[in-house]
C-alpha cells in the first residue's frame, strides 16, 4: 500500500513541478493576474478603485468582504458547518447525571505553582487578549486583520481560560447555549445583510444601497457594510473555535477538559 501512495505522491509532485515552469515571474506586470487578459485587469481595478468605491484603505479587506463577499460568506459557512459537524459527532452526555462537578487542581500532588504562576499570568493576559482581538476586528479596514483573525483570537482567549483553569470556568463565561446561538447569529448577520440588499432591489451583498440604513452616502455605506459583515464573521469564528476546543478536550462531555 505504501508503494502505491509513493507513486501517487511522486506523480503529483512531478506534475506540480512541471507546472511551476509555466508560472509568470514574481511581480511580472504582464502576468494574467497583474496585466489581465486584453486590456482589462482585475487587480489594477482593485488597486485604483478601492479607495473611491468603498473608502477602505486596506485593499485586502475590501476584496475579501465586498468585491468577493460571496466567497467569504461561504467560507464563514464552511467554518460554521465544520464546528456543527464536530459538535454533532462528539457531543455526548455522561451516563447518569448531566454534568460532573469540576475537578479542582490537586495541590498536594501538583503544587501551588500552576495556580500561582500560570493562573495569575493568564488572568492578567486574558482581558488584554480580548481587547486586542476586538481591536483587530474593528480595525480590519485600516490595518491587517478582520473578522477571521480577531475571531480566532477572541476564541483563543476563552480556550486559554479553559487551559489555565478548567473547562467549567470557561463555560461559565461562554456557555454551550451561547456559543451555538452566537455561531448561528454570525452567519445570519452576514447573509442577512446580503438579503437586505436583495430586498432593496439590488444585487446580493451590494452594500451601496444601504445608505438609508446607515444614514450615510453610498460609498460610506459600503464601508459600514464591510464592517458589519466582518462582525458577523467574528461571531461565527469565535463561537466555533471555542466549541471545537470544548468538545475535543472533554470528549464531547463538556465536563472537565484537559
Amino acid at each position, binding site marked *: 500500500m505504501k508503494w502505491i501512495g509513493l507513486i501517487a505522491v511522486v506523480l503529483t509532485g512531478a506534475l506540480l513541478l512541471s507546472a511551476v515552469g509555466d508560472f509568470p515571474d514574481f511581480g511580472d506586470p504582464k502576468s494574467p493576474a497583474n496585466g489581465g487578459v486584453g486590456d482589462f485587469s482585475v487587480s489594477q481595478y482593485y488597486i485604483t478603485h478601492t479607495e473611491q468605491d468603498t473608502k477602505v484603505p486596506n485593499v485586502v479587506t475590501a476584496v475579501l468582504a465586498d468585491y468577493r463577499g460571496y466567497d467569504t460568506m461561504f467560507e464563514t459557512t464552511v467554518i460554521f458547518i465544520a464546528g456543527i459537524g464536530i459538535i454533532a459527532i462528539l457531543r455526548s452526555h455522561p451516563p447518569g447525571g448531566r454534568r460532573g462537578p469540576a475537578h479542582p487542581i490537586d495541590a498536594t500532588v501538583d503544587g501551588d505553582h500552576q495556580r*500561582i504562576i500560570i493562573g495569575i*499570568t493568564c*488572568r492578567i493576559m486574558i*482581558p488584554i487578549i*480580548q*481587547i486586542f482581538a476586538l481591536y483587530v476586528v474593528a*480595525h480590519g479596514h485600516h490595518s491587517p486583520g478582520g473578522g477571521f483573525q480577531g475571531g480566532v483570537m477572541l476564541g483563543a482567549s476563552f480556550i486559554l481560560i479553559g487551559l489555565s483553569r478548567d473547562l467549567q470556568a470557561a463555560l461559565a463565561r461562554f456557555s454551550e447555549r451561547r456559543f451555538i446561538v452566537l455561531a448561528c447569529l454570525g452567519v445570519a448577520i452576514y447573509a442577512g445583510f446580503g438579503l437586505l440588499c436583495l430586498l432593496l432591489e439590488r444585487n446580493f451583498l451590494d452594500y451601496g444601497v444601504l445608505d438609508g440604513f446607515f444614514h450615510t452616502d453610498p460609498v460610506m455605506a459600503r464601508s459600514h457594510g464591510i464592517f458589519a459583515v466582518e462582525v458577523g464573521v467574528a461571531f461565527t469564528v469565535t463561537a466555533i473555535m471555542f466549541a471545537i476546543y470544548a468538545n475535543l478536550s472533554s470528549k464531547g462531555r463538556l465536563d472537565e477538559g484537559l
Partner: protein
Amino acid sequence: MMYRAVTFSLLLAIWLVFSGIYDAFHIGLGILSCLFVTWISSDLLFDDRSLGFRARLGQAWRLGGYLAWLGWQLVLSNLHLLKLTLKPGAMAEVEPRITLYRTALKSDFEKFLLANSITLTPGTITIKILGDDFYIHSISKFAADGLDGQMERRIAAIFAPAGSGSPSPSAD
C-alpha cells in the same frame, strides 16, 4: 463597581494606544468593546477587591519602581549568562543545583511576583511552589548565593500598607 470602572478605563487606555485613529466611529467602537470585555471578564484582572483606590494607586507606583530595579537585575542576569557561555573555560563554573527557598510572603500575587522575578534574575528558575517553599534551579553557586532576602523585602515593601507597619496579606 469601582473595580469595574478601573478595569474599563485601563482597557480603554490600551484600546486608545492600539487604535491610533481618533474619530467618533472608532472611539465609539472602543467604548463598546471595553464594555463588552469588562462585562465578560472583569473578575479576571483584579482578584482581591478589599482595598481602596488610593492604596491601589500607591501599590501601582511602587510596583513601577520595583520593575525598574528588576530590569537592571535582568541585565545583570544576562551578563552573567553571557560570561558563562562565551568565556573560554567558564563552563567549569556551571554547577547546577536545586535549592529550597522559604518565603514569608502570603498572598498569591506576591508569590507570583517573587517567582517570576526569581526566574528573571541571574541564573535561577522557579521549578515548583509548594506552600511557602520555592524549589529553585540555579545554574551556578554564584547564582544560588544571589538568593538572599533582598528581592523578597522589596516585594513586601510594595504591598505593605502605608499607615500600619505590618505587611498586608490581602494585597493582590
